[in-house]
């Protein structure tokens, strides 16, 4: 079976205004809306499209996190994933741990491809895909904006600082999704009902044999330095005069 594994992370919704807790221990999460990391949604959408084109047979959504991650995995199933696996942990897991968990699952699932989001919008690390590719000793194609599968290979267009780069990788490989790879589909109500019957297996870190030992201690969270609000100028002439006075134009 040609299988694709997709990583699904539960994060604070991108529309939520983030506030740092006064004691610096983290950010406020009580009563805050949680969602699938937007890049993971794009990764899942791509996996579904690859399957719909006939280049894969099964899409498996993998979550690593607290029990509530089941909500995001149910959404993934409603979008079209065939089944889901939750590796449960209440610890904050760092990218190397996520990579090791994925590698464990790769060993039992033997996917042709793993598609992840290029970064999570909470820790903004942009690390897991590359780390997984390294320890799996397989190719990586990060920041993908176009994917074409052909004869055991993937041709991937990547968003890079210079513009668009295209590389070819042998499968299996790790891909990470950038914003413009696709536009994820909306979930329809019947799909939500159907998703309830799809398999969602729950395991935990200890069972699959991965330790979550942190490599980096987080000492504190701080709010960023705020910019001072400036002035409203009345017209273009006043703006240009102000910039000229500062030597900016």
């Amino acid at each position, binding site marked *: 079976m040609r299988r694709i594994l997709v990583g699904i992370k539960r994060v604070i919704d991108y529309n939520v205004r*983030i506030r740092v807790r006064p004691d610096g221990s983290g950010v406020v999460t009580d009563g805050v809306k949680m969602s699938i990391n937007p890049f993971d949604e794009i990764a899942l959408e791509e996996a579904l499209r690859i399957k719909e084109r006939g280049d894969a047979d099964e899409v498996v959504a993998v979550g690593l996190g607290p029990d509530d991650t089941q909500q995001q995995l149910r959404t993934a199933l409603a979008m079209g994933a065939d089944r889901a696996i939750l590796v449960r942990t209440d610890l904050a897991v760092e990218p190397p741990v996520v990579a090791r968990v994925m590698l464990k699952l790769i060993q039992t699932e033997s996917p042709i491809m793993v598609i992840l989001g290029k970064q999570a919008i909470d820790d903004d690390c942009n690390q897991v895909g*590359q780390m997984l590719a390294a320890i799996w000793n397989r190719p990586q194609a990060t920041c993908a904006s176009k994917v074409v599968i052909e004869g055991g290979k993937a041709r991937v267009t990547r968003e890079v600082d210079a513009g668009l780069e295209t590389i070819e*990788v042998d499968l299996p490989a790790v891909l990470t999704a950038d914003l413009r790879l696709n536009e994820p589909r909306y979930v329809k109500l019947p799909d939500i009902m159907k998703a309830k019957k799809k398999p969602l297996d729950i395991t935990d870190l200890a069972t699959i044999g991965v330790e979550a030992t942190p490599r980096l201690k987080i000492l504190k969270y701080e709010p960023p330095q705020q910019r001072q*609000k400036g002035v409203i100028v009345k017209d273009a002439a006043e703006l240009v005069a102000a910039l000229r006075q500062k030597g900016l134009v």
Partner: protein
Amino acid sequence: MNRILIVAEHAGGMLNAAVAKCVSCAASVPDAEITIAVFAADGAAVAQAAASIMGVARVLLVDHAANEPALAAVLAPQVARLAEGHSHVFGPSTTFGKDLMPRVAALLDAAHVSDVMSVESAQRFRRPVYAGNAIVTVEAAAGEPIVATVRVASYQPAAQGGSAKIESVKLDLAPPTHTRFVSVSAARSDRPDLQTASRVVSGGRALGSVENFALIQGLADRIGAAIGASRAAVDAGYAPNELQVGQTGKIIAPELYIAIGISGAIQHLTGIKDARTIVAINKDAEAPIFEVADYGLVGDLFALIPEIEKNL
């Protein structure tokens, strides 16, 4: 002694300006000895440029046909090999560095810190999370190797005038063949580069079409600025992806940033936090961009851009 290895980014025989910023970051680690590693097909000129950055002790040049164009899967094992004996390995937080450095960190089983914005000690760093809405201080265990990307907008480039010695290194590593470069489409332009420009004019969704986006180009050319864009403008095809500014685009720190028809979503603002002066032009007086703008001008951009040009 902290021995820091910096991986040089380069293209077309030119050293990327981000490298001198990585040197500034590395120099802020106490008791640092800085080495730059150049992986290239024929990197003599790039190595020369690296050697002339102040504060660099030596440059290691690894020439191999497979090293250009750079592929993370090809470079990572070589970086990992050269990292032996170093306490830190740094790279820029550009798409090159972000692709490569986590792969290096995994090979070395090192702690990995993305987007270092300040160095508090040899093990302790500050970095942005949540699109820059929080800053965390992280610490690696003493004695552990550290791989990091440097948030280049947080650093000034180290000065020129150094004269580090250059050593050629041969690594007996067979490059992997599972990853192959096909092509890169980079728009060549005579305009200043977005990442290093001192002035940037950016356009948003409000421009409404590719043709209208030319207004942004016109103003940028008048003041010698680079062009930027919001995600909405890039998604709509008004501007190419490499011009996107923000959380998932470029993080920039120009002297002057002019945002035109951009609402100021947090994902956009995180890319311009370090700009010296921000100007916002928007017809909605309540747009969040005005919260961070030093100068705000409320009105229709199609009327205001010509007005501004007239006054220049």
